[in-house]
């Protein structure tokens, strides 16, 4: 077995992360539908396989930068569900004290450095985190997540060029869910494959089925090894789909029914579960136990969030600068 093939233990670890992301997302939507929670929520359900498979290759020291649609990336990297839920609920106990919300999730102790709400802005910042590791001579890698639509904004271009010229230890992960808000891929993007844009920066670019954990693991392993070895950046385009629209409330009228159905049929979660069973990497009982444990984790997280106090109004004067403002 090659170094870049995930073994059974790893595959099960990936499954656990996917389960955590899926169940948390299902629960958030349930809580919103039931009126227990309210927020602008960008579900990543359907994309969980990508960060799950990448993050088993990372440790806490590695850096992650993501976007408003980044709950899956954050959970996979280690943001505790409790702190996530409390943040979504806007509570004082949230990872950002309720100041950031879903678009600004942060948790440095697990390498969750920045979440941005500005399309494209995750890439330049990732270059800086990677520069820090390079200057310190660390093997630390930085993962920069963004969407397909973001590949058309200037910051993408400048960042890939800079990362290539400076040989920065960064992996650019384009989660291509084929839509930018309500605009389909081809209406906004002139090239067939975003991965092909890597050539403009003399950088390896690879497209992969983002719903196949083994495939994502394989390409991520190569890109991360390359970055740790000081050989520079890689662009990964992971093909996927978002099941719950751009924002909760989005009815997806702009998505052809057949495409939607096909995407749902390719749901990575049940498919991967079946693969694990078929390949005998785990028994149904073992996987059920994982799901149950994860659900319990979410139960605790929601309970924690709901029972937590709201932030104090004075927090508006704190964290604007190191010193409080009047």
């Amino acid at each position: 077995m090659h170094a870049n093939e995930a073994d059974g233990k790893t595959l099960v670890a990936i499954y656990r992360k996917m389960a955590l992301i899926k169940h948390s997302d299902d629960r958030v939507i349930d809580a919103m539908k039931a009126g227990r929670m309210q927020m602008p929520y960008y579900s990543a359900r359907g994309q969980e396989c990508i960060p799950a498979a990448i993050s088993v290759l990372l440790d806490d020291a590695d850096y992650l930068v993501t976007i408003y649609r980044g709950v899956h990336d954050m959970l996979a990297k280690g943001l505790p569900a409790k702190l996530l839920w409390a943040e979504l609920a806007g509570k004082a106990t949230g990872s950002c004290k309720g100041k950031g919300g879903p678009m600004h999730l942060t948790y440095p102790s697990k390498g969750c450095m920045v979440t941005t709400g500005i399309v494209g802005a995750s890439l330049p910042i990732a270059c800086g985190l990677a520069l820090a590791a390079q200057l310190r001579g660390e093997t630390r890698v930085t993962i920069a997540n963004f969407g397909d639509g973001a590949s058309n904004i200037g910051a993408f271009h400048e960042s890939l060029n800079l990362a290539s010229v400076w040989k920065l230890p960064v992996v650019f992960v384009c989660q291509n869910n084929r839509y930018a808000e309500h605009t389909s891929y081809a209406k906004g993007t002139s090239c067939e494959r975003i991965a092909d844009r890597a050539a403009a920066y003399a950088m390896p670019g690879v497209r992969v089925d983002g719903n196949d954990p083994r495939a994502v693991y394989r390409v991520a392993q190569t890109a991360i090894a390359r970055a740790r070895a000081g050989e520079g950046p890689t662009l990964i385009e992971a093909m996927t789909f978002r099941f719950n629209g751009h924002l909760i409330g989005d009815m997806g009228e702009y998505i052809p029914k057949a495409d939607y159905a096909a995407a749902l049929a390719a749901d990575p979660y049940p498919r991967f579960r079946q693969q694990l069973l078929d390949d005998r990497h785990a028994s149904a009982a073992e996987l059920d136990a994982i799901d149950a444990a994860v659900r319990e984790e979410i139960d605790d997280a929601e309970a924690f969030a709901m029972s937590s106090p709201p932030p104090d109004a004075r927090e508006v004067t704190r964290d604007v600068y190191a010193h409080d403002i009047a």
Partner: protein
Amino acid sequence: MSTTPKTQANLLQSLNQALHDAMEDDPAVIVFGEDIADPEGGGIVKLTHGLSTKFGARVRSTPISEMAFVGAAVGAAVAGFKPVVEIMLMNFTAVCMDQITNHAAKLRFMSGGQTHVPMVIRTMTGSGMQNGGQHSDFLEAWFCHTPGIKVVMPSNPVDGYGLLRSAIDDPDPVLFVEHLPSYWLPGAAPERGSRIPIGKARVHRQGCDVTVIGYSRAMHDIAPVAEKLAADGIACEVIDLRTVSPLDMDTVLTSVKKTGRAVVVHEAVKSFGVGAEVSSRIHEALFRELKAPVERVASADSPVPYAPPLEAAFLYRPADIETAIRKTLA
């Protein structure tokens, strides 16, 4: 939406109507922005709904490339079109600031008047929807401090329609700022083809004790306070600036000359905001006539927070408006 009953309309409907009517009346008007065409839903709040179906290639959804499409609007305007582009949220002006401030605002001057840029940039913003620090800011002061571009900020459907039509007619670039949370507030419907002049404030309510000056969302907070104080015998003269740059100081000073007192209100953070300019100009012009210093009511000098209780703490409270008014009367 293009067939609204003429009696009532909300801001969303009146702006949609203004775009339909402008495109119908003037073939030079073109519209583009992210998700604004009908296949993409006619805009994230459906404000541009129906335009692409009716006007075809003159209406386009763009890639997520604000620099490119705002710059393209500049170029099309230089070539004689009247582009109306949407920058979805006001914070995103930060990714295309160069085309707005170094180009749209300056080409007429730098070319010695050989070219000009008759374009409108529509954008929406406002706190109170848990959109957090990068999706809620009022940044009008940046553009007011930029000679060459005008800044218009309507507070109701009738002004919205008339000001958008005037902005589209205008030979110079206009930044048109819409308050997202009040799109759905009902109001009187605009007259088809009506215009509200850019650079003219509106006296919303007559009064002799104190002048309260606002624009955009602030008008919704000022009105009830003025009502309440009227009951206590305090007569507020309420002014809706409508255009923030250039400022209609004639209307403001005429009122303050009468009242001798003034309060300026806006959602943008207080420091170095529009209120400072209005306050300075009143003090400079009416120092001797003023009975009290001009008061400013605005948001805390912080980013916009996410949690509702913090959003409430960020924004001024209506009570702050009353306190400021009473302070000028003390």
